[in-house]
């Protein structure tokens, strides 16, 4: 349908047009963003009415051609991506617009951001494993470029470290895809769900793809690159990186685990993912507590929150035989991914505003910021509530679903880790909040920030809370076309 194509064509067309436009690129982005948001909404309403759809590109049916898949999961991620990126575009016009003459960062930011948006939409819509690879590479390329955008030694080093992990991840994933093709002669996810059986090539392929994507999602043993990269990037870029880029590779892991390999996914691999997830939560949180720079605290928090996402696999019984609580874990993981996207984007934008206002990024400069920048502190607070998984936020709904799945499934250990993770999150998130509420230190000159710029993160943080309060609607959206392994459970 037209809306799905618009979701793909518009961001890519805008990205291409932004290169020759140069100085006028911000205006182009401001025009393109609402259109893409509209397209994403249209896709969501379309499948809400008519159910999931498979659109063969160029008319060629799989296994020959590539098919775009539109179901609840993809529509939800499309919509979240559109809202977050739309807000980032609006926010970035105040930083990267250079009306008089074209600067390097001013030129490079807009095409890269719009191309990243196109890549995200391509990942969320594609139903073909190799197509996901190419879209993932476009995403990684733009992400690495955005990390190194302000050209300092630390950020270039962080970009190189990110690149090395990303290269390793993409090769492992590509190797898995080649094995799948060699074994089944098909790359389409819907087809593979029928063909897949547990044998040597499928198991090796599943292991390689999962490890590759784990490296790209910065899951625990592969997380070293994320904090310096996400903290070094300019604020709008780090919002995109933490909120959406890591989610794209997680989205693919979900597609593989629950659509392609429900049969091959055995307990061992799921347990390893779970262990890595636990490691991420504990390790990420402890490191976040020890940080002095606000952006690094937020970045390490991403490492920790990503751990929750991967707890979904052991809890949902790796999709093999559909346990009754599988749906709870599946929905919990996805809702957590969405609410984390909103909350983390808001938090990084706030961190950017704080850094701009106090001139540096260290947390002790935040004293008394609640008085001069009340809106930003309020947005940061709301985002923190969602990250800590406290009601009424989306984070709480996700944590509740995952906890019920953990208890029903009998693995109490994961439940305890999740609760501990919530407490640790409270520790490292209340440290900055506490400084914000403290009395302002004398002689700290805080440059005032325009109110509309402070409103942007507030809208995103509000969305994270709304995902919890009005969670019935997203839950029904996610249910459309959900993999059969994740059907049973709570209902």
């Amino acid at each position: 349908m037209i809306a799905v194509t618009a979701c793909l064509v518009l961001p890519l067309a805008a990205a291409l047009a932004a290169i020759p436009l140069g100085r006028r690129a911000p205006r182009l982005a401001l025009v393109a963003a609402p259109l893409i948001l509209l397209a994403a909404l249209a896709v969501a309403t379309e499948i809400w009415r008519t159910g999931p759809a498979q659109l063969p590109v160029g008319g060629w049916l799989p296994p020959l051609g590539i098919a775009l898949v539109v179901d609840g999961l993809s529509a939800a991620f499309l919509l979240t991506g559109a809202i977050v990126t739309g807000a980032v575009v609006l926010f970035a016009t105040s930083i990267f617009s250079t009306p008089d003459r074209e600067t390097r960062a001013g030129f490079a930011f807009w095409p890269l951001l719009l191309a990243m948006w196109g890549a995200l939409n391509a990942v969320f819509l594609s139903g073909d494993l190799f197509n996901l690879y190419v879209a993932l590479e476009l995403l990684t390329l733009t992400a690495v470029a955005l990390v190194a955008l302000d050209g300092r030694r630390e950020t270039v080093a962080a970009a190189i470290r990110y690149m090395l992990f990303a290269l390793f991840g993409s090769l492992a994933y590509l190797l898995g895809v080649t094995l799948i093709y060699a074994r089944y002669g098909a790359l389409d996810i819907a087809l593979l769900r029928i063909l897949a059986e547990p044998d040597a090539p499928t198991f090796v392929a599943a292991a390689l793809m999962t490890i590759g994507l784990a490296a790209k999602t910065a899951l625990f043993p592969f997380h070293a690159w994320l904090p310096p990269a996400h903290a070094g990037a300019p604020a709008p870029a780090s919002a995109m990186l933490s909120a959406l880029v890591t989610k794209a590779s997680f989205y693919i892991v979900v597609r593989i685990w629950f659509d392609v390999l429900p049969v091959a996914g055995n307990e061992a691999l799921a347990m390893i993912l779970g262990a890595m997830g636990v490691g991420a939560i504990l390790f990420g949180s402890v490191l976040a507590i020890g940080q002095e720079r606000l952006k690094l605290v937020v970045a390490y928090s991403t490492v920790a929150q990503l751990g929750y996402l991967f707890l979904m696999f052991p809890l949902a019984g790796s999709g093999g035989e559909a346990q009754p609580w599988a749906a709870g874990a599946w929905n919990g993981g996805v809702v957590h991914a969405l609410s984390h996207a909103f909350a983390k984007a808001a938090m990084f934008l706030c961190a950017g505003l704080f850094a701009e206002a106090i001139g540096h990024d260290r947390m002790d400069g935040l004293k008394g910021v609640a008085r001069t920048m009340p809106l930003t502190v309020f947005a940061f607070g709301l985002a923190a509530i969602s990250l800590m998984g406290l009601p009424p936020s989306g984070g709480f709904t996700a944590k509740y679903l995952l906890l019920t799945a953990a208890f029903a499934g009998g693995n109490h250990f994961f439940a305890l880790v999740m609760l501990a993770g919530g407490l640790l999150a409270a520790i490292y998130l209340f440290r900055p909040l506490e400084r914000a509420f403290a009395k302002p230190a004398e002689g700290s000159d805080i440059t005032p920030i325009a109110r509309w710029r402070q409103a942007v993160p507030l809208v995103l943080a509000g969305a994270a809370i709304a995902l919890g309060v009005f969670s019935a609607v997203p839950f029904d959206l996610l249910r459309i076309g959900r993999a059969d392994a994740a059907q049973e459970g709570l209902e």
Partner: protein
Amino acid sequence: MTPALVFDGLLALLAVAAAMAAIGGRDLFGSVAFFIVYGLLIAIAWVRLDAIDVALAEAAIGAGLTGILLISALARVERTASSGESGEGGRLAKIAAALLCAGVAGALAWAALALDPQGAGLTPLISEALPQAGVGNPVTAVLLNFRAYDTLLESIVLLFALVAVWSLADDGNWGGLPGLRQHARSDGVLATFGRLLPPFGLVVAVYLVWAGSENPGGAFQGGTVLAAIWLLVAMAGITELPRVSSLPLRAALVFGPAFFLAVGAIGALAGTFLGLAPAAAKAIILAVEAGLTLSIAATLALLVAGSPQRTQG
């Protein structure tokens, strides 16, 4: 053991040896040289695997262009950084890494041997759908019709690699000329070679793109030849690469993917995204390939030249 298998065995051994030399070599320039040799051996392997298009691509891009990029990067890094090999990590780490790699290779081999020897993949389906694809060469059919969406994304990836490379310039040099100043003597050997070769190069490039629809060749291979020609002419000092901020250059870079996207969008309005009617498929594919060749040539040349280093000529 048929002679063909002997040749393949030798080729495989040579390739593995070249790879080991490239990876394990002490001197960095030697490693890069071995990498280029390794690339050519792999290209021959593709010929042995009856995949001529891939052989062309591997030779032109895999070995050639990547080799040039490595050499120019090596030159620039040697000039600025202490090339001393810093601590290589303990022996234990090395052994562990070696074991890990052996494990991965072993798992791959185990999976490969477990594959069904009669597996034919998509060959039957493609040959059956080839008549509606508008082109004779099945690889071009897959690239530009059956899986055109992949190629579209890939051309955008290439273009944005250039945008990313440009974004790594110094702020002061923005808007300047890409790459370093060249020092060719105007009457020297390179200058004459730079005037003699371009006509041949253009003919070969156009032929590659045109022949691509029926037998091996295509936009990427043709684009690489064009890029090589443009670089040679620039190195010979005959012309100067255009400024980064010049509009025609940016238009040329964007034209290929933009035209491809436009074709896809128009197809979408008529029903299916990137849908090519069998009748008009050949014309559209060739038009798209021409556009892509132009953009790929410009992009590859500028990728080799690198981010803008100079503000005046």
